[in-house]
């Protein structure tokens, strides 16, 4: 039983995790992790109206404009991916 569980239960959990964007693994790079964080942050701002209007007031922009900019920035929030330096 235990050996079976070892192979199924936890690996299943890992599979399940891997199906969602934003989850990570032991070999995740700094860039990827931070990109996800930024996207989460931007999504959170767009999703919470109070945060959006706060930003809009601070920037002196329309709420719609802030939303749009946040959404646009989600594409590459931390700039293009770094080149792989090793070979």
């Amino acid at each position, binding site marked *: 039983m235990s050996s079976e569980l070892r192979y199924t239960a936890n690996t299943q959990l890992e599979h399940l995790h891997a199906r969602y964007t934003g989850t990570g693994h032991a070999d995740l790079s700094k860039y990827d992790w931070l990109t996800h964080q930024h996207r989460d942050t*931007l999504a959170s701002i767009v999703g919470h109206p109070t945060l959006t209007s706060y930003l809009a007031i601070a920037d002196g922009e329309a709420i719609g404009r802030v939303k749009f900019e946040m959404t646009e920035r989600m594409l590459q929030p931390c700039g293009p991916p770094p080149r792989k330096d090793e070979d």
Partner: protein
Amino acid sequence: MRDTIVPVPCKSRAPKEVLQEFADLAEEENVDPFAETTSKRQIAARQSDYHNRRFNRVAVDSADAFKDDAGEGGGYKDAMRLARLEQEELRVKRAIEEKERKEREEGQMKMDLDKTPPAAELADVAMELASAKEQATAAVKEKDAAGTKRKRRWDVTEPADENVDPNQPAGEWSDKALEASAPKKRRSRWDATPAEVAVGETPKRSRWDQTPAAAPDAPMVPIIMNAPGLMHEDKHNRYLTDEELDAVLPATGYAIVTPPPGYAPLVAPRKLMATPITEVGGFQIQESSDAAAAAAAAGLAPELPTEIPGVGNLAFFKAEDAQYFAKILKEEDETELSVDEMKERKIMRLLLKIKNGTPPVRKTALRQITDKAREFGAGPLFDKILPLLMERTLEDQERHLLVKVIDRVLYKLDDLVRPYVHKILVVIEPLLIDEDYYARVEGREIISNLSKAAGLAHMISTMRPDIDHADEYVRNTTARAFSVVASALGIPSLLPFLKAVCRSKKSWQARHTGIRIVQQIAIMMGCAVLPHLRNLVDCIAHGLSDEQQKVRTMTALGLAALAEAAAPYGIESFDNVLKPLWLGIRLHRGKGLAAFLKAIGFIIPLMDPEYASYYTKEVTVILIREFQTSDEEMKKIVLKVVKQCAATEGVTPQYIKQDILPDFFKAFWVRRMALDRRNYRQVVETTVELAQKAGVAEIVGRIVNELKDEAEPYRKMVMETITKVVATLGASDIDERLEVRLVDGIIYSFQEQTTEDQVMLDGFGTVVNALGIRVKPYLTQIVSTILWRLNNKSAKVRQQAADLTTRLAVVIKQCGEDQLLSKLGLVLFEQLGEEYPDTLGSIIAAEGAIANVVGMTQMNPPVKDLLPRMTPILRNRHEKVQEASINLIGRIADRGAEFVPAREWMRICFELLDLLKAHKKAIRRAAVNSFGYIAKSLGPQDVLSVLLTNLRVQERQSRVCSTVAIAIVAETCGPFTCIPAILNEYRTAELNVRTGCLKALSFVFEYVGPQSAYYADSVVTMLEDALTDRDLVHRQTASTIVKHLALGVAGLGCEDSMLHLMNLVWPNCFETSPHVIGAVMEAIEAMRVTLGPGILLSYVLQGLFHPARKVREVYWRIYNALYLGAADAMVPFYPDLSELSEGQNVYDRHPLQVFI
């Protein structure tokens, strides 16, 4: 005196009888008692003659049409020729039989006159047969020489064919029909003119050459055939000896032909069996080869090897295996073998391992044979596998394994398999009509893989010759195989071929098989036929007016299958066949009519209401006429069609009442119908369906008098119908007069039953419950019946009476007949001494039902008398008794615990502990719940101490149930009553007790939820101890407690103690045991809920980029769980990593740095 009575000849006969008796006895001693079971394991011995016709089949090599050098391997044209030869052979044989029969009839008369022995006639017949054969062979040879392949050979009766241009592929279904249906370019390989065979090349072997008796230079064969071991095995089917042939054939004009160079007699392997093998039947000790070796030493099984060089030990080895695996049974010098021989032996070893080996041996061998399949090649592999599958003594397990080998090998070989398609089909097709479901599925799987590997064109060209095979068995299996091909490669790709076959002008058999293929496709693929429904229907529609009755019947069955598969859609596809079908039912009789009716029965439900009504009226006339039929099959179909018609929306109740019911009841509600099980079911189903339209009163009124019929099976049929009708439609339609007759009939039939089964009981319960308060006038009578039967001699009758009480209790209470209930209760109470457990269980259940409806205060006998009586019964080990008594006791404990003295309850508590060991979960659950009820009325102390003591027992199940019971007590009496006791008990030095306490605590916190907030601080010290214990299970269970606790106190201000527990749980995240890590992860998840994801994130951040992968992996798993649970809430807590920015990558989160 006596001497005069005994007749003289008797004296001389007596010793003979005695001798006979001894002879019988001697024979009996030789009887193998296991012979019967052995034969049952063998597939061939178990199956019907029809199934065993598979042994008559001849497989041909199918040439790979996709290879240029198709060459020697025969192929489609040879297959076709062989098929026609077989047909002709059958025709000649039939003609001969016919002639023989006639002559015998005439000879009979002759023999009466003078006693001429028929030997001369037999010789005549034999000569005729031989000359027919000779003629056939000569014709074949002539044909080969002439090079005109397609000309018919023997049918001088049809000279028209002779005029056909010999270079055209004349005749056959391939001519106009195929051209008409298929686009030109689809006219592909299999109907192209076959390449001519050079004259002088070895002619293709015809079947005649294969009889080994014809091989003159093989004197070995007859000798072996005469060997004693084989003679008695096969004495009816032995081959003719040379002497016999000489006697049969004329001396002049014949030459003995030398066999072709590559020819090997079919029976070659039997040579190796010249010494008869002693049959070892029945019991064999498997696995242990030592025992088998000992047996061999003792001379019990001298011939059967247990260890084979290069194979090792086998699970078993049968006598028959020896002939197939002869080559590897003895040691050989491998250096002298050629590469091919080595390969052959390798394959044989692997097959033997797979077939007879133990599971691990089998597994590795299977993998090896799969991996090396392409290396071995299709030929050598199938040459070994297929004969094994045709062995008569094959058993299920062996067949399964060999089929598995074929499946795996097929996958690897892919298109290399083409030359063997027909051989494989011959072996696998019989699986499709096997009675075992899994065999059928396996067969389908293989054929589907085979068709994917070989391709549609090759499959069609291989199976085409079998479509109009003379043997119905072959056609049947081929049709099924074709339907599998259709489902594997898609119906559209097979459609042109199907159209052509269904229109074949050449033979009705081909049309018949084509239509059967469509039928099988419908049966197998179900609603997946819908996209192609019109095509399929059009494909077979014309068969309804075929001149062959069998084809018409099959067409109707095909339409029925299609309509059934398409239901409830697709009526528009059947437009074309409606007219012929409805006209057909007026034209046909017998089997044909039955099939037509069946098709109509399946098509009507697809129609719109008004059409359905119209067509139903059309068909009803015929149906009513056929009500009178004596044919069982027809009866069943008629009933089914009536049921289907009645169920359609368009058919009005009025119509059913007036036009169908009178004749229906006259024809089918007769005693005779109750005798056959299948008829019985059909009639009941159909009547219930009719009742849906006609109403309860109509149907019940018609049959209620039959409840008093003298035939019991018939009464049962009536009762079952009434039950079903009343259960679905209720009893409100039944008027007063009918009600009287109904109740009267039911009581009568209940009392008169002699076989005890559920039908009468169910019927009684259903009807009485449906009538409700209206049964009040009859209750006295019913109850007195029950009371009388409760004292019956037969235990079954008593049990039934008790069961009836259970069902009636609610209604009796509804009618306000409380004194009847109390009377019943008392009688049942007196019966508690019952010795038959089944009956006792029913009596207790009945008592429980009464207690349920009257309540504990009014219960008679009083609860304080009833319960002490139940205590000893709890010790009964019978499951039914246990369940019934625990239910009754639980009910009393719940509702009327105060009527029973506390000491009695304690006694019951101890008995209940035993019930915690019960196998049935319902009993354990009821027992655990009872503890809760008892604790509620008695106060928890005593019950708790009983349960805590029970934690010391050995059985795990009992301990687990005790912990659950403790938790339930805690839930019902408040946690404060239990937690101190549990904490105290935890200090015991015994491991089981401590684990039990932890477990109980975990259940307690699971059950009490938010209440845990009051107790969180008091258990912290104990959890500290448990979470730092060396024992894994302790930490695991403690983690579970932490989980429940944390979830319970979420948002209730216990964060400080939870954080403390979190610090203790956290280090356990590196555990590897699956249960422990699972519990720890769940505890951490629960902490996310209580403490918030921010705190958890700060823990996780420490290890996400740890240099050790082991650490990173665990931390990322926790991070992922955290992320999935609260991604949004984590945003404010992500660390500011702006200092990591480099080059283009800026990691500042600017929007969060804005402030007003």
